């Protein structure tokens, strides 16, 4: 199969696009930046919404970004079942846009937190998690001031029941305990997927964990999941012939 074509969405205050582009090189993806004012994603196989402070994160993270012209294209791409990854600020934008439920509030300790964080992989379905094993503990950097996942109890129950809570903050042994929760997220939620499972939102930064030299490679494994998923999508494969 040809190289995955990945659109990396760039809002004015986005910065992880540069790191995603670097990792795309390691993964041999054909990645392209798409400016937030563009209305056309350029027919990609997957879309990434990277970390940053889209519009300075003034008012609320992602509040203004969700109205950017590019978001209409992202939403219809997602609605059509395309693979979408929102990391950190990208996750915040997706919740503001209503593509994913809930909201990310200020960390319970009120501080920004940057660290390596163990995560338990709860589900390994969908485009982004297939390369991981259920129940395994991976380590990815977190770097955010507003990552406290919140949703009403009924929404949380529905997420749990449908297996859409895919990543939880854990300790090094994989135990999901309050002490390992870096921001006060309800039910230690670090990542969720939409109903169809094609859209993943997570607070951690997989693109920062792609080389041993800078601390780890679990992020590379996560991102590489896309390749196999694309091959397994008959509709996509056909389109790409």
């Amino acid at each position, binding site marked *: 199969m040809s190289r995955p074509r990945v659109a990396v969405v760039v809002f*004015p205050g986005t910065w992880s696009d540069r*790191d995603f582009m670097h990792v795309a090189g390691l993964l041999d993806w054909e990645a392209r930046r798409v400016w937030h004012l563009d209305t056309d994603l350029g027919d990609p196989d997957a879309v990434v919404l990277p970390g940053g402070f889209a519009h300075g994160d003034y008012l609320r993270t992602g509040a203004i970004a969700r109205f950017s012209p590019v978001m209409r294209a992202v939403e219809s791409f997602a609605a059509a079942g395309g693979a979408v990854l929102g990391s950190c600020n990208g996750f915040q934008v997706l919740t503001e846009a209503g593509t994913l439920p809930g909201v990310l509030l200020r960390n319970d300790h009120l501080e*920004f937190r940057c660290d390596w964080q163990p995560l338990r992989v709860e589900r390994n379905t969908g485009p982004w998690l297939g390369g991981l094993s259920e129940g395994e503990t991976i380590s990815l950097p977190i770097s955010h001031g507003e990552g406290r996942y919140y949703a009403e109890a009924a929404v949380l129950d529905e997420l749990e029941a449908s297996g859409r809570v895919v990543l939880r903050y854990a300790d090094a042994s994989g135990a999901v305990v309050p002490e390992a929760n870096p921001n006060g997220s309800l039910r230690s939620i670090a990542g969720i997927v939409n109903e169809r499972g094609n859209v993943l939102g997570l607070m951690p930064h997989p693109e920062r964990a792609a080389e041993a*030299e800078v601390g780890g490679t679990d992020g590379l494994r996560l991102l590489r999941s896309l390749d196999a998923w694309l091959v397994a999508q008959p509709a996509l494969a056909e389109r790409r012939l």
Partner: protein
Amino acid sequence: MTIAAPAERHGLTEAEYERVVAALGREPNPVELGMFGAMWSEHCAYKHSRPLLGLLPTRGERVLVGPGENAGAIDIGDGLAVVFKVESHNHPSAVEPYQGAATGVGGIIRDIFTMGARPIALLNSLRFGPLDPLEDASGRTDAAAATRNRYLLGGVVAGIAGYGNCIGIPDVGGEIGFDASYNGNPLVNAMCVGIARHDEITLARAAGPGNALLLVGASTGRDGIQGASFASASLGEDRDERRPAVQVGNPFLEKLLMEACLELSRSDAVVAMQDLGAAGLTCALAEVSARGGCGAEVDLDLVPRREPRMTPYEVLLSESQERMLIVVRAGREAEVRATFDRYELHAATIGRVIAEPVVRARFAGSVVCEVPGRALTNDAPRYTPPAAPPADLAVRRGERLDDLAAQIPSASTLLELLASPNARSRRPIWRRYDHMNGTNTVVGPGAGDAALLRVKGTSVAIALALDGPGRIGALDPRLAGAAAVVEGAINVACSGAAPIGFTNCLNFASPEEPAGYWQLAEAVAGMAEACRTLGVPIVSGNVSLYNETPDGPILPTPVVGTVGLLRDRAGAVPMRWSAGDAIWLLGEPAWDAAALSASELAWRRRRFGGEPQLDVGAAARLVRLLGRLAAERLAAGAHDASVGGLGVALARLAIASSLGAVVTLPPGAAPFPSASLFGERAGRVLVAVRPAVEAALSAAAAEAGVAAFRLGSAGSD
């Protein structure tokens, strides 16, 4: 027109006023007087420090740009340069810690991208008064002062984090210290490091009459008017009246400015770039034109404003943040403007470069100022005031510490030092900074003596450290200057890198007091000597004077930023030992009682005197040896002794390695065991060595003329 202000108001003395009249050949008008007041302030003109700075070595084979531009630049091979500078924002942080620190970070980042370099790292050096009255052995900190210090620390760290995290530049290291002399006068020094291709380095020299002057970024408000003169006065009781409108940073806007300017630095449509900092538009116009040997003519009506009814004086001296002056080749404005448009930035053409070497501004049709750029910059007065050591210095230096030094060290003393504010873990600070953005951080904060950043696309890493000298300055400011340089060089050398350049920030009290000027002069001389001995130049820096409150001056605090180069980062040396490693101490031993002077232990025991020492020549040999040990893969781990001496350094290695060690100090340490274990004399490094190469290590040390002692081995519980 503005109200006529007396020369006094602008901080100029009568003699300086006469000098202005002589430079202009006439009386200045009120606007011009305000411009001179700001430009001839200590902050902009370096009146008391410029003659001293001449002592610093600034040249070297690798130096591409030395002092005088927005930042220094040094060649690191592969057609790349490292561009860096450190700057203070002490006074603004004392008034509004969050915004003061945030705008300090914003300012130093602008200095780097103005040069056409992409910022890849920030570091910060901080000083505060004690957070708890019980932590102040000098007894000068009451509960209210401690509460204020906690508020300042919280605000400053949040401000550094707020700006750096938002703009997306990792903060990879720094240092922090506490002493009662910083009560109410914290120090906030921020360093920024960027990488540029040689051919994209952009200087701030206007040229080509007819070229356009573009003002880009934030609109202009009444922010920080007279900020330069504020920064040049002590934080006295009248500081409320002096207080300029607090500047508020906008890292989001600066991100856009940065991306646009970096894109433009690759275009030949841009002749020069200059950021607007202290003294705002006045300083930017004066500096670009003076550097370029030409002039500038602007129409102040074209400056986008945030507030109504601003006077020409206010427009010329506003310190609104996130603004850049861009000199654009005539006829290419549309193209440059299109780039700024793409980043949703407003760019206004406010004037032109002219051949005549003056800064001329119009407002509502008439000329409101016409001043030679050089008069505002190069012709500022220079002073060499009287210098004299503090009257009680000889007495304090005469204090003997033998009794303390002879005490048998106890585990509880070690624990006390490890937990002391000046030595305890900095994790609560650095985990609030994004230190991984850009995925270049090979060694981040807390993991080594220096941060190590890879340069993508090369085999190279650069090592970064920012260091101040602790309390030595109270007893020997010359040594303090030297110690800051030596500590920086050793910190980068511990990671295997060779130091290639320094930047510095001189934080001192009033130079108008003989003791204050003496401290400044001594420290600069000590820095200069140490740089010469190491053969490493200083390529940029900043001076912050008048750091004092009614309670007294701060400790002399020369802060040094060090950049090291590691050609092959696969050979980086970690701060760690492994089971079975032999542990060696390299460097001149400090087994004498004087090694305790100015140490954390002595201070905690209310022993504030003594005669600190440092053998800079030996330290330079050690730095070179460490480079060789890394290159030959002889060192498996390294860490230098600093606060808390060898004792704390050993404990830190044990913690970092999750593995203990058994060590025995050599017989020479016996007479003064506490000094040997807790003395803080710089120039000593602990090295972990695989047993197979111990002989090679000791031969290399002997050859380098570096003293070496085998202390024990790791892993034997």
